[in-house]
């Protein structure tokens, strides 16, 4: 049987980086191929080449034996390729229907037939069991729903090959399971699926074949039958990776972060955090487990002064922190690794050097009075890039040019390199590859052992279970239970997260 997609010897260089070096990959009809690799390994570049979003320097891409011209997105679509992009390609101010029909609009005369379009969207949504409201504005929808729209967009033209670029990065575990099921159904109906992910568990669950990229080259090809998660991780990183976090016994001291009867509203002015009490002691990691949307985000933002507190207080080492004053909270020794690094963690257009001092550029040693101390800034950046293994051509490179994992390392480096009493880490490893995850975890443990109180909020239950010394389960804006790491067993925590009693 001839392959549905044949990528032969594709090479692509960007200024200063070889993204793909003579890569060959093929996908057959009805097959699910996982493309695995660290951040910056060249996975996205490769699939973008297939979809005509990137022009390869050399090499061939054939779909059903037909050669695809470089950069011909329209041609790829016409040959039955659909792609779900890592960064959603949706127009926020338009409706779901408008977004889905864009590029091939049903017409009546010269006008768009919006009725037919709506009907088509509804039919499409029913066919694949992906529920969407055709008339909702995309900007009003949560990310999970936006992802569904992206998938529907890709599936609209009876695709033969579906490419998904990190589709599960922003999904909740339930949404991920749904998506994996959709992928399986599609493959069963004869569609070839090529998907990129960092999550080894997903690969093990659905892939027929795994192609691992490392530094722009194919590092190996295997299948879930022949290997396990450890094996995949090793192939990806090129060395042994310890998936299980190794840490010593916590030596908790006095409470450093105290949250007392804190109540906070969400964006829609509904109560999201409800008179919550929580204590984190110096030298311990408290993990907040919970299904996303149970007030974790609001809790973190209120602690860090980014969201108004309705009532209650947050104490650091006994002193109350100011409300709605992030800089003031930070000055009291609170480091914050924000959930959304692009929005709250970095200024994409600033250099790495500047991003590394975003919350302390105005004080010694980085500034003397009004003047920035250039030598110290450079020295600081050079040291942190080295220490935190940030892979970048230079400290002057803009943060926006880095891959996701390296962006996160910049944030982590900035927040953990300071003298901190409290670390608030929200989803610290979201969208980050296994090598970097291991590194960030070790840094958090090092901060704990250095005497900081660490509050870890994560949607990944495994992350909580492996890092936390105590697990606080959050449900409906309250901490419903606090468990010692030893008694926090997966099933129990899962039940508590769902709001059931233990």
């Amino acid at each position: 049987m001839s392959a549905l997609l044949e990528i032969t010897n594709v090479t692509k260089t960007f200024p200063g980086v070889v993204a793909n070096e003579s890569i060959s990959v093929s996908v057959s009809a009805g097959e699910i191929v996982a493309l695995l690799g660290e951040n910056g390994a060249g996975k996205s570049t490769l699939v973008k080449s297939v979809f005509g979003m990137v022009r390869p320097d050399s090499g061939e891409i054939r779909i059903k034996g037909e050669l695809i011209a470089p950069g011909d997105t329209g041609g790829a679509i016409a040959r039955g390729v659909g792609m779900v992009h890592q960064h959603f390609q949706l127009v926020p101010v338009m409706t779901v229907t408008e977004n889905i029909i864009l590029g091939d609009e049903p017409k009546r005369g010269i006008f768009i037939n919006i009725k037919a379009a709506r009907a088509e969207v509804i039919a499409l949504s029913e066919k694949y069991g992906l529920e969407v409201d055709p008339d909702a504005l995309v900007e009003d929808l949560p990310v999970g729903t936006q992802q569904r729209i992206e998938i529907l967009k890709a599936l609209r033209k009876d695709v033969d090959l579906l490419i998904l670029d990190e589709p599960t990065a922003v999904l909740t575990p339930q949404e991920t399971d749904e998506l994996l099921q959709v992928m399986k159904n599609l493959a069963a109906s004869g569609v070839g699926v090529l998907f990129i992910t960092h999550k080894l568990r997903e690969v093990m669950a659905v892939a027929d074949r795994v192609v691992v990229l490392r530094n722009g080259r194919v590092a190996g090809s295997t299948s879930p039958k022949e290997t396990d998660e450890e094996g995949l991780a090793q192939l990806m990183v090129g060395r042994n990776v310890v998936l299980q976090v190794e840490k010593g016994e916590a030596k908790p001291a006095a409470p450093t972060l105290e949250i007392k009867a804190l109540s906070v509203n969400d964006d829609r002015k509904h109560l999201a955090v409800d008179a919550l009490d929580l204590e984190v002691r110096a030298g311990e990691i408290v993990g907040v487990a919970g299904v996303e949307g149970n007030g974790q985000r609001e809790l973190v933002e209120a602690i860090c002064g980014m969201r108004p507190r309705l009532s209650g207080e947050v104490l650091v080492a006994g002193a109350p922190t100011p409300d709605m004053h992030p800089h003031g909270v930070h000055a009291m020794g609170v480091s914050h690794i924000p959930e959304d690094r692009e929005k709250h963690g970095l200024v994409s257009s600033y250099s790495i050097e500047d991003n590394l001092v975003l919350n302390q550029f105005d004080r010694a040693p980085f500034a003397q009075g009004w003047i920035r101390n250039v030598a110290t800034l450079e020295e600081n950046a050079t040291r942190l890039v080295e220490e935190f293994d940030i892979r970048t051509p230079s400290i002057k490179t803009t943060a926006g040019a880095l891959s996701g994992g390296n962006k996160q390392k910049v944030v982590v480096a900035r927040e953990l390199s300071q003298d901190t009493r409290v670390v608030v880490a929200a989803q610290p490893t979201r969208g980050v590859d296994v090598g970097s995850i291991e590194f960030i975890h070790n840094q958090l443990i090092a901060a704990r052992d250095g005497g900081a109180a660490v509050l870890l909020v994560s949607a990944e239950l495994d992350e909580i279970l492996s890092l936390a010394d105590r697990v606080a389960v959050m449900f409906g804006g309250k901490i419903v239970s606090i468990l010692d790491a030893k008694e926090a067993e997966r099933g129990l925590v899962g039940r508590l997260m769902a709001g059931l009693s233990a």
Partner: protein
Amino acid sequence: MKKLLSFKWLLTLLLVAITGYFYSKDGVITSSVVSTALIFGLPLALAAMVGIMCERTGIVNIGIEGTLLFSAFVGFFTASATDSDFYGVVAAVIAGTASGVLLAFMSISWKMDQIIAGTIINILATGLTSFLYKQGHTAPTTSQIDIPWLSQIPFFGQVLFMHGPIVYIGLVLIFVLYIALFHTAWGLRSRAVGEHPGSADTAGVSVFKLRYLNVSIAGAVGGLAGAYLSLELVGSWDRGFTAGKGFTALALMIFGRWNPMGALAAAMFFGLTQAITNQLMFSQIVKIPDQFVNMLPYILTIVVLAISAGKVRPPAAEGQQYEKEQA
């Protein structure tokens, strides 16, 4: 949004009531004032369409003023040389298109900063026309066409159906643009490109081509507005006689929320204030020095922008280059 909507309707109602009241007092003058409002407002409305077409696809066009000046110049002197108003209008439209293509070339192909590209067009137009200008020429102007039957309707006949040809063409154009922008595939794609070019690109729509097309067509519309100024409204050309209409149009575009109908309404309101002050001056009801009266449109621009600033949301990708390839 709701608040502003009711404000809009209230204002319309008020204007209708006032017009009705004055019409009952003095029908001749009222009809003439409202008709003049359209005559003064049309070039602003057309110029605002240039801005809307460009900005809706993500290109900031600050060179509208230059487009108006240059195309009015070319139109006037072509009409003068050929002794034909028709050739004059055609030449103006071609000149406008050329300025649009130049802007597209600088801001899309060369990826130049769009504000600088537009400024270049303004400077180029001022310099070139001043250099080539020769005094003492006259040109045939377009003549008024009374639409049979419709022009006999009291009030509305004079206001809407007793104008030069470019007024009719312009008004139709604005309505066509409105419908095209919101009800055709071209409009949907254009708006998508202006909001989030990646969404169009990944749907197989060429961001590059669509931006080129729209900026060029917008140039042609600007050319028509220029022709209107020199060949229909004023009947002559003078250095810098566009007097900031291209910039005022940008303010109207913002006030009209990048919507052709909104910008048309805003332009008509501007035309009306100008028509009313002219009438007041002419009939010697108020005696204010000319200079102050001539300031009025500019002061209104500032006021309008101050009122609407912050409440409006421009197309998200406005002024940004689209880079297809990213690592």
